[in-house]
């Protein structure tokens, strides 16, 4: 295994961040509720909107971490 390949193997753990968002967002029982509300928005709505931002941050992290 050469150096470049070793680096690729190591950095690919970052892709697990993608798995986290898949599991969270595809499990509706987790967020199908009213409380706690945020500025009057039911949890169902603000939680999913918040995950849009979280997922963008995750993707940016993976981008920086796996950049050659």
């Amino acid at each position, binding site marked *: 295994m050469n150096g470049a390949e070793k680096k690729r193997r190591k950095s690919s753990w970052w892709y697990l961040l993608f798995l986290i968002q898949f599991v969270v967002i595809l499990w*509706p029982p987790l967020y199908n509720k009213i409380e706690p509300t945020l500025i009057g928005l039911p949890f169902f709505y603000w939680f*999913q909107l918040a995950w849009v931002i979280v*997922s963008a941050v995750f993707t940016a992290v993976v981008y920086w971490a796996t950049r050659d």
Partner: protein
Amino acid sequence: MPDINWTALIVFILLFGFITWLGFAAARWRKGDLDLLNEWGLGGRRFGTVVTWFLVGGDVYTAYTFVAVPALAFGAGAVAFFAVPYTIIIYPLLFLVFPRLWNVCHKHGYITAADFVRGRFGNRWLALAVAVTGIIATLPYIALQLVGIQVVIGALGVTGNGLAADLPLVIAFAVLAAFTYSSGLRAPASIAIVKDTLIYVATFAIIIVVPLKLGGFAHIFAAIPAKKVLLAVPGDHTTGSYSAYATLALGSALALFLYPHSMTAILSANSGRAIRRNAAILPGYSFMLGLLAMIGLFVIAAGIADMPAYAEGFKHFGSNFAVPALILHIFPSWFIGVAFAAIAIGALVPAAIMSIAIANLYTRNIHREFVNRSPTNKQEAQMAKWVSLVAKLGALVFVLFIPTKYAIELQLLGGIWIIQTLPAVMLGAYTRWFNDWALLLGWAAGTFAGTAMAIASKLTPTFALTLGGYTLPGYSALYTVLLNLLIAVVLTPVFNGMRAGRAPVDQTAEADYLAS
């Protein structure tokens, strides 16, 4: 229908005139030889991170999306919010798969997904299946964009009888066809920048003004029937709305980038890196789409559906009238013009890209493969320009003469069909393990089963799958692509054995998939 709103109509026409000029002027932007298919149909693959952001955004979040997602929320409630998990999932997929596809397509001059499949698996019939699926799935999508334009033109109060009623739509389409013909992909790319700016302004105006007028979010949600605010909790022996919600999100996400128009926008980027960066910044649009889905609920809370002024609009356009009615209800005339222009221009961008994508597929994977095997570059580009006209004309005829209901149902079937190209295209980007004929049979089985499921569930997206006394309602596209994959996996060793080492040559090498 209300009388013509002149202020709104004039603002609308001015903005429309501006983008018409822009569409034609785009031919000179990053100038290339438009007699080459690569230049006309992919903008010379020269778009950087920012233009790609506008282009993919303009492509994925279409006018129809902006009308239909809130309309679904207005009619069906919380389930419409599946659009949010859907758009969360698409970007990791974009990040993982598409830089590889971009690299290999760039290296070998592939313009369509079917080009790639042809090179990778060396089977023209498999490539034909991918091309035909792409064309058929995209045509009703173009028709739906026209429905978006129809709704706002109706809401502006422009009505008439017979042919006169359709005249504004015909004009809009003539404009679209002309600038696509002359400027190719550069036209929607430049217009997308204007369109997205307008859409952002309109959405944020709605999301700020409406809650203020209705007394805050808490007030709004208190006014909505409880069963629309959340998903229904499943009963015994069923996963109910939960599995429907999750599979709709996942299945739609897997299908999205297989659509030819998404592929066209992605391949026109100037590097794999521009695509990866976009995976991180495109969620800006997802956030807006989530806000828009909530706007559909605001319409319920505002009680607009019961106001006599909008009764005819709702009668004519159904729940698709929800957002236009809300805009008419709360904004001054000049802003109504801006918001409606945003929706109409938002229809032109994806419609242009879709017709270009269809043209690329027909020209490369049907005409060149089966009719004229050695066209000159100029003949190839000319053919594509004509096909883009024919595709749009077909969509226009469809919208004018066939009820909207059929376009919506065909678009639903289109999603089920397009996902069947996933094993060949997305998994093909990673592995050549699959046998080409096994992939083709898997595709056929998935397409057939998906169509049957959709018909069995009365042309709605979710099919109630029953397994050992348990009911698992879910998106037919996801169920059938699993069947497709299973068949491809089982048949691959069988067919490889029958062929005994005479596999077609893979034109691509592993190094072609990595950034150089």
